[in-house]
């Protein structure tokens, strides 16, 4: 086995999820028929619980465009996409030297994050709606996937 390139590109959580969904991971309730291995299903289960479940490639492109003016490192930007922090205290461990580099613009940045990246359903207001929301969103996801 020869390693040609140990780092041939980064994958956001969303892209890994898309990869697994394109193999049929989301559609198969029995988990036997789809061309997805059990270990891959575990990854799918994990990613389903994160905000990546509601993201699409277009959303991520838009977010990267919007973030260029903040001069963030690649890793920091992708970490924000994967985690979707919604408050300043959540951003602090992700971006190094947050105060000195971002200063006042942190609120602006947070606004950007919260608007562009969709929240995970459980982050919405009332708990009664989450069950209905989850059903609706999974339906949307399934119709959206070709």
């Amino acid at each position, binding site marked *: *086995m*020869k*390693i*040609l*390139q*140990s*780092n*041939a*590109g*980064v*994958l*956001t*959580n969303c*892209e*890994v999820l898309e*990869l*697994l969904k394109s193999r049929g991971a989301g559609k198969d309730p029995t988990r036997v028929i789809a061309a997805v*291995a059990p*270990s*891959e299903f*575990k*990854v799918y*289960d*994990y990613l389903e619980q*994160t905000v990546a479940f509601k993201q699409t*490639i277009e959303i991520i492109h838009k977010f*990267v465009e919007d973030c*260029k003016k903040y*001069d*963030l*490192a*690649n*890793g920091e*930007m*992708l*970490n924000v996409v*994967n*985690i979707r*922090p*919604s*408050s300043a*205290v*959540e*951003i*602090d*461990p*992700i971006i*190094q030297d947050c105060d000195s580099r971002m200063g006042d613009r942190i609120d602006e940045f947070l606004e950007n994050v919260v608007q562009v990246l969709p929240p995970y359903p459980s982050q919405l207001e009332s708990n009664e709606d989450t069950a209905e929301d989850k059903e609706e969103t999974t339906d949307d996801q399934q119709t959206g996937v070709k």
Partner: protein
Amino acid sequence: MRVSSSSSSSKDIARPPPSSLLKTLFVMSEIEHTLRLPPHLLNRPLNAAIKGELESLFLDKVIDKLGLCVSVYDILSIDGGFIFPGDGASTYTARFRLAMFRPYVGEVISARLKESTKDGLRLSLGFFDDIYVPIPLMPNPYHSEPDPEHKNGIRWVWEYMGENYPIDWMDEIRFRVHSVNYPPIPVEQGNDSEKKDSEEKDSRQKDLKPFVPMVIVGSLDADGLGPIAWWV
């Protein structure tokens, strides 16, 4: 998809970032491997057969320094198909890309609590369980108390501004990657015949601790880390 990379800091605007700066939870690695395709797979289309073989070889396995292989992303090329003398199977050289789970130091990840013991915490991602938070990396100041719900378990509690915040078995815990280690595969050692029976059993018990090829050490010692419920 390659994310167009902007400079990592204002000092390095002219230089393009080295590939080590391209980092996130999942990374693609390009590998070339020569594999033997067993004859019973010859009736399958070549791509599917090779992909199946690669999956059984690499999926859910740790490659040193590259991380845990999560999925075969795609196959770039397949060469060969030679049959060596005395062998019924054909041998192919394939170039392909694997999606690897390889978090970088400093990345913030959401996980769930798996174990809480006197040595610290153990967190799990579902597909990867070997994330440890040792005592020095717990949020300071803290104290521990015996857990009423789990026997032999210890519950860790963070003290902040006079309030006690326990680390319970609740939803998400965010940690920051402190280090990623790939311990070398242990070489088996011969039994020491001078030990008595009971001692031999004890040492065998310790040896039975499973070998872990990839260990992530996480830290909870910063604002915004720990159970999300503390901060939201």
